């Protein structure tokens, strides 16, 4: 165990004048809990669950929590086990996902439940109550032959790709979309360093203000917009030289731009080291209008997962998943808040890790927050262990000053 890397926990940076005041929702992958922490890193609300998080949670405007669940020891997404001639397992492949979707009210009652073993990464609640879901689906055999790239795998191995399903609260499918109907076999190859167990890897389905779907294919270095009516892909970005590599969570912004976390695993021309960044793209010109990179760049890197959220004051909340680090930067790239997750736990057969897939910040005036009775005192015993911050009261002192 590295003492140097594991000793500092909780809030490490906090500038109350510049940060976007609110509460941060986290669902640590190793555990059965979803936590809401305040700017000082204290726990102010907690949801206990029977299942581990598939990936993350969202707080709805009515104060309910929408949460992905995964039964213990179940793989994340469909599992492919490859054995050699003697029957020895040489590879276990699973690409991330979950099996339940729950809605829990502030009184801890589960008010809605949905189950499908093929649930993929993302779920996006819409105003009319419907939910857009990403799901795994098999690539039809005829199409499989046409797909280029990737590392060869045993011939009889399945190849997965994605479908989108919009469901109503009775579970009826009201709209669906299959990736193999709309993607380009020449452009959308599998990355040369990724196995052919999966073609497209859809980790996001954000809904645009006009109802179109904004998605990301990690293994194709691509983010794209699907026209909700025609189902056609009407905008693509990321595959140009040096644009994106293995991106996550493209998000539509109020100004019409798109924010995306560019993970940077397998980034071309980054021969010396890997680095992640967050970019804001103008989809009309395909130009990058804002970028955040750490200095030195290799100190902000997570090869997979991660999320980004534009906050109401113009700041950006970033989740660096693998290290369990959540931080907020302002327009000029200054770090104004940083939190290192103290929650190490085991998940899906893995060893204890601090992974957080996506965190979300909710402002004090968000209607969902107002529905909750936030009280750090109620969680004082948990806070004694997990609620300490590395600032040792420095921020509180500063706040008291006129």
């Amino acid at each position: 165990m590295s003492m140097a890397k594991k000793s500092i926990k909780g809030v490490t940076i906090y500038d109350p004048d510049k940060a976007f005041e609110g509460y941060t929702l986290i669902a640590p992958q190793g555990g059965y809990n979803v936590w809401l922490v305040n700017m000082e890193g204290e726990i102010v609300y907690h949801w206990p669950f029977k299942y581990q998080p598939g990936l993350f949670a969202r707080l709805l405007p009515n104060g309910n929590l929408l949460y992905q669940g995964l039964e213990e020891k179940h793989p994340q997404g469909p599992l492919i086990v490859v054995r050699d001639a003697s029957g020895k397992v040489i590879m276990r492949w699973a690409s991330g996902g979950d099996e339940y979707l729950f809605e829990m009210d502030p009184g801890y009652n589960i008010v809605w439940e949905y189950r499908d073993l093929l649930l993929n990464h993302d779920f996006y609640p819409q105003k009319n109550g419907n939910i857009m879901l990403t799901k795994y689906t098999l690539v039809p055999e005829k199409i499989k032959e046409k797909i280029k790239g990737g590392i060869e795998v045993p011939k009889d191995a399945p190849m997965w790709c994605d479908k989108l399903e919009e469901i109503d609260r009775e579970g009826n499918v009201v709209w669906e979309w299959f990736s193999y109907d709309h993607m380009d076999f020449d452009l959308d190859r599998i990355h040369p360093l990724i196995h052919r167990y999966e073609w497209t890897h859809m980790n996001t389905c954000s809904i645009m203000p006009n109802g179109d779907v904004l998605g990301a294919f990690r293994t194709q270095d691509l983010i794209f917009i699907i026209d909700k009516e025609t189902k056609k892909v009407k905008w693509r970005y990321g595959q140009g030289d040096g644009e994106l590599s293995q991106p996550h969570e493209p998000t539509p912004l109020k100004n019409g731009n798109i924010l995306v976390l560019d993970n940077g695993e397998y980034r071309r021309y980054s021969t010396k080291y890997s680095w992640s960044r967050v970019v804001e793209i103008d989809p009309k010109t395909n130009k990058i209008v804002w970028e955040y990179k750490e200095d030195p760049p290799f100190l902000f890197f997570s090869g997979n997962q991660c999320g980004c959220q534009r906050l109401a004051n113009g700041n950006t909340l970033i989740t660096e998943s693998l290290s369990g680090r959540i931080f907020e930067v302002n327009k000029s790239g200054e770090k104004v808040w940083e939190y290192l997750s103290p929650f190490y736990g085991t998940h899906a057969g893995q060893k204890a890790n601090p992974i957080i897939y996506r965190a979300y910040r909710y402002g004090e005036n968000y209607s969902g927050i107002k529905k909750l009775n936030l009280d750090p005192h109620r969680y004082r015993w948990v806070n004694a262990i997990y609620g300490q911050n590395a600032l040792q009261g420095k921020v509180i002192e500063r706040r008291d000053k006129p």
Partner: protein
Amino acid sequence: MIKERVLEGITVNKIWKAYNGFTLYTTLGSKKVKLIAMNGKIMHEWNLPYLPGLYAELLPNENLIYSGHLEDGSLADFEGAGGIIIGVDWQGNKVWEHKDPYIHHGFHRMKNGNTLIMKWNKIPKEISEKVKGGIPGSEKDDVMWGDIIQEIDKSGNIIWEWKSWKHLDAKKNSIWPTVERDQWGGANSVYEMQDGNILISFRRICTIAIINKKTGKIDWQWGLHEISNQNCAIQIENGNILVLDNGFHGEGIHHPFSRILEFDFNTKKMIWDYRDRDNDNINFFSDFMSSCQRLPNGNTLIVESSWGRIFEVTKSGEIVWEFVNPDYAKFQDYGTSNVVTRAFRYGVDYPGLKGNKELGLGKMIQTEMDVIANKKAQEEQEEQGESRKTLGSKEKDEQAKVMSRLENLGY
């Protein structure tokens, strides 16, 4: 900056399990080389005339050998660009030097006193055209560079030479798909094996190879589809091979991580490895540089360069000593960082340390080592399940005194 995220200086120091001695390290972008004691106390500092090309090593004859970086070299932006290798004494006086603008990465001092070095050299077009892989069209000004390995004597004469492009296979040893075609091979470590043959790590083709010193042929190569963008392939005392697999751009890996591998030289089978098993491989990863050293007590000293972290692990993977470099320096696109390029541990009885009076070695070896031995015995007893002898207050006082004396001595 990572000051907010990690502790700096010594964070673990279980001296009764660690290999006691002094640690030599170099900070990227700084002209200082430091020798620290087990408690982090700086015992000696060299101020050198050049930035590090990569690292420094202390030789048994009490000279420090150091690869320097010439900032005006034509390939100065290549990773590991050097240009000069110098030997200096404890006071920093130059005793030896070898200059060549194309020298890169490290060096290896051979048993016969000669030095093995790595140099970049242009690959003839008719060969480079046939090399597969890499990002198409990304040669450096239309040129692909290869490696020359040279054995040079004290006066700089070339005793032996090997050219990589004459022996590597343009098809089989293809360049990694995500990197530039400005180098083929990308040697980053060279080591003289016990039988006189040469062990080389080629980063850009994810391969380590043994070159027959007599015939120049590649006797053995390994790594493709197994390791990715590795560093520091060395042979250890028992004949086995140790290599640091950085894990940069690894195949089908969802989250990249680094590890140390030990190979049985005869069977070429992996017999030991270290990675951060406690935390799902998350807390040990460096894309670049980094090093490993097998210590006489069986422990392994590891450098995780990108975090400036030097740590020692036992056979079972327990961290018994850990240090994070508190010095920051600026260098090229590595920004202002505490990157440590490589580190070496020298035991208190290492001949190369004898000439330095500041270290107070004589005193320490006699009395203080006994304390360490006692503590070790105590721990072993505990492991065997025997009840631990409870210390009386007198004995406790005595132990505290000895421990504080140890601290004063730099332990």
